[in-house]
């Protein structure tokens, strides 16, 4: 064992920093999934019958589907009857009307996570929706957003306050039968955020949703829907954490983005679900369907994700570039350590003329982990002059981890230009020695090298998130062996 190897092994292992459990009285359904459970979820939320029917239809579809097995991940069969599908903090009879009425324990939880919900201590310029297990517990800055005509509220609330929008757009990008986990989500989704940016409005604040799983044996199935009307613009951030538990927990979310003419959505994620311990025990199964429909001409969507958490990540934020001149971007950093597995990437579906897409994917594998990039670039027959540029880089730390790239390219239009570049590199002993020789210890050196590797992606993140992402990488890499 080399000295640098030892040095790394000897590093004090900081625990997963968000691993605490909030002691709060919750109402949680018994584990199990049936039509009756779906009816109860719907009833809890006082939903109109059209939505219940929508859920039941999804459940019917899901029952006829098989679990996908094509991803490069390995985990024991999930027993869907072992999961509780609804959990909510027991509040008084009525839901809190303002944040002042929210249980102080809950507010404390978010403060501990660095997400102060009290507007007194708010994050400057960021409106936050906090989703705790199955429910949203409050949105900050409501008034300021309302003034601008922006709707930012829990989707369960939007069902009542803006049913016409929900009816029109829910499932319009990710239909119920899209895939196994999307169907499951459609049947049992609990809460999530709804955002509507009216025509020509530039959202005055960054919008952010913070997801927290707290209850044991509970799945989280949130649903996010963002609609950007013509000429509007919004930047949306999402963060996720969960307590440390020995059992695996399922998170199956759906995110739908609808982008009309000349509008733009920038969607950033810092995903830090509990990754399991160093022996691979516990952790979140993160099976997520995210898709953006660039319906309008000159519309643009940009996905930026930093994925450091979860035992298993299965996620492909995609862009359907239907409008002419529409633009899709995907910037991703996926870091796996210990026994984590990630199979992530994107799909760029070019349908309109002059559509352009960029994919920059950075995979970092450490420990005994496995990281795969899986991407599809499809150029439809009508996508005259479509352009794609893809760059996939993998960085290996140590010699017990794996990195894989699965790019799929389908072009049905001769005028299209598709470029794909891929590299694999190792954090080399020479690089570490150079850093150490300049007085930098191994831990700092590794995180500096990894951050350098991720630079092209980090520069796409909003400032506060870029800082958080850098810190996250440091923590996630702790205790990894350089070898």
């Amino acid at each position, binding site marked *: 064992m*080399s*000295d*640098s190897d030892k*040095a790394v092994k000897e590093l004090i292992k900081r625990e997963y920093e968000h691993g605490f459990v909030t002691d709060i009285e919750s109402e949680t359904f018994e584990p199990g999934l049936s039509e009756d459970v779906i009816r109860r979820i719907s009833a809890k939320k006082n939903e109109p019958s059209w939505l219940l029917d929508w859920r039941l239809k999804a459940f019917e579809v899901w029952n006829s589907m098989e679990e996908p097995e094509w991803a490069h991940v390995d985990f024991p069969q999930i027993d869907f009857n072992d999961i509780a599908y609804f959990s909510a903090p027991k509040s008084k009879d009525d839901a809190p009307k303002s944040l002042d009425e929210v249980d102080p324990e809950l507010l404390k939880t978010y403060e501990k996570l660095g997400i102060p919900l009290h507007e007194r201590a708010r994050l400057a310029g960021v409106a936050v929706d906090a989703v705790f297990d199955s429910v949203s517990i409050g949105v900050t800055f409501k008034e300021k957003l309302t003034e601008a005509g922006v709707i930012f509220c829990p989707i369960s609330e939007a069902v009542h306050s803006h049913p016409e929008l929900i009816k029109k757009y829910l499932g319009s990008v990710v239909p119920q039968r899209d895939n196994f986990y999307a169907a499951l989500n459609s049947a049992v989704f609990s809460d999530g955020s709804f955002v509507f940016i009216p025509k020509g409005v530039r959202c005055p604040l960054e919008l952010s949703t913070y997801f927290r799983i707290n209850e044991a044996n509970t799945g989280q199935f949130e649903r996010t829907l963002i609609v950007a009307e013509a000429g509007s613009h919004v930047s949306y951030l999402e963060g996720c954490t969960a307590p440390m538990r020995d059992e695996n927990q399922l998170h199956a979310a759906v995110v739908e983005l609808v982008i009309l003419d000349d509008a733009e959505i920038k969607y950033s994620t810092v995903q830090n679900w509990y990754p399991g311990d160093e022996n691979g025990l516990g952790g979140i199964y993160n099976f997520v369907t995210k898709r953006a429909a660039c319906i309008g001409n000159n519309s643009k969507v940009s996905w930026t994700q930093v994925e450091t958490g979860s035992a298993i990540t299965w996620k492909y934020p995609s862009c359907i570039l239907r409008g002419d001149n529409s633009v899709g971007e995907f910037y991703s950093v996926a870091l796996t350590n210990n026994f984590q597995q990630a199979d992530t990437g994107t799909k760029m579906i070019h349908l309109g003329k002059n559509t352009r897409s960029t994919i920059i994917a950075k995979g970092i594998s450490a420990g005994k982990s496995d990281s795969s990039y899986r991407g599809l670039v499809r150029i439809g027959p009508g996508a005259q002059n479509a352009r794609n540029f893809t760059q996939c880089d993998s960085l290996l730390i140590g010699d017990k981890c794996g990195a894989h790239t699965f790019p799929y390219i389908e072009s049905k239009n001769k005028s299209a230009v598709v470029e794909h570049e891929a590299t694999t590199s190792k954090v*080399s*002993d*020479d*690089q570490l*020695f*150079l*850093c*150490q*020789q*300049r*007085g*930098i*210890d*191994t831990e*700092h050196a590794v995180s*500096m*090298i990894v*951050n*350098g*590797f*991720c*630079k*092209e992606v980090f520069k796409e993140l909003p400032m506060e998130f870029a800082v958080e992402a850098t810190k996250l990488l440091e923590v996630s890499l702790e205790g990894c062996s350089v070898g």
Partner: protein
Amino acid sequence: MLTIKDLHAQVEGKQILKGLNLEIKPGEVHAIMGPNGSGKSTLSQVLAGNDAYEVTGGELTYKDKDLLEMSTEERAREGVFLAFQYPVEIPGVSNLQFMKTAINNIRLHRGLDEMNAAEFMKQAKTKIQQVNLDPSFLKRGVNEGFSGGEKKRNEIMQMLMLEPSLAILDETDSGLDIDALKIVADGVNALRSPDRAVVMVTHYQRLLDYIVPDYVHVLANGQIIKSGGKELALELEEKGYGWLGIADEETA
């Protein structure tokens, strides 16, 4: 400053240094010359603490401390600097960020506060110009896409920033044209002071025209076989290594 006693070292199971002795005092400049394969680079790597090289015997005393007990980064923080023969690239990590991290790690070790950002920028700009590199190099990734000569000058820039007590130059002159050689030499000469020492490892005499050493040592087969003043280098230049009865794999 540095005492090397009966140093034995091996790499990949092959014995390279076989009982090397050397005494370096503050203010001195020593040139270590020798043919390829004599152990020059091994000596540099061992002094800096590269763990690919295994010390199998002997003592290294630096500023009254046992150097062998110190990790690579500790040695660096205590003022040992190695200018690499083949500087590696660190893509995406800017020279500025790299130097800032290094300086602050060293300062922390010495019980000092972090260097103030304006002061740091001022120094960085001065030093990069001192080695005749455009300030834009500060924002580029460490050695990323640099030419061979630029990498060597970048090493000297780092040395000037870190102001080491003991600077070890490992074949810094190799691959440099005469202009670059002068720039590098000016950098090293600027650093010379009564409380610092420089060890230059080189195959050729020409660097010594610009950095005049106090002592010249000839290394062969893992030992110093001859020591002398600066005139020894000239003699070597004239007569070749064969003069000392040692084979030079590469004909200069």
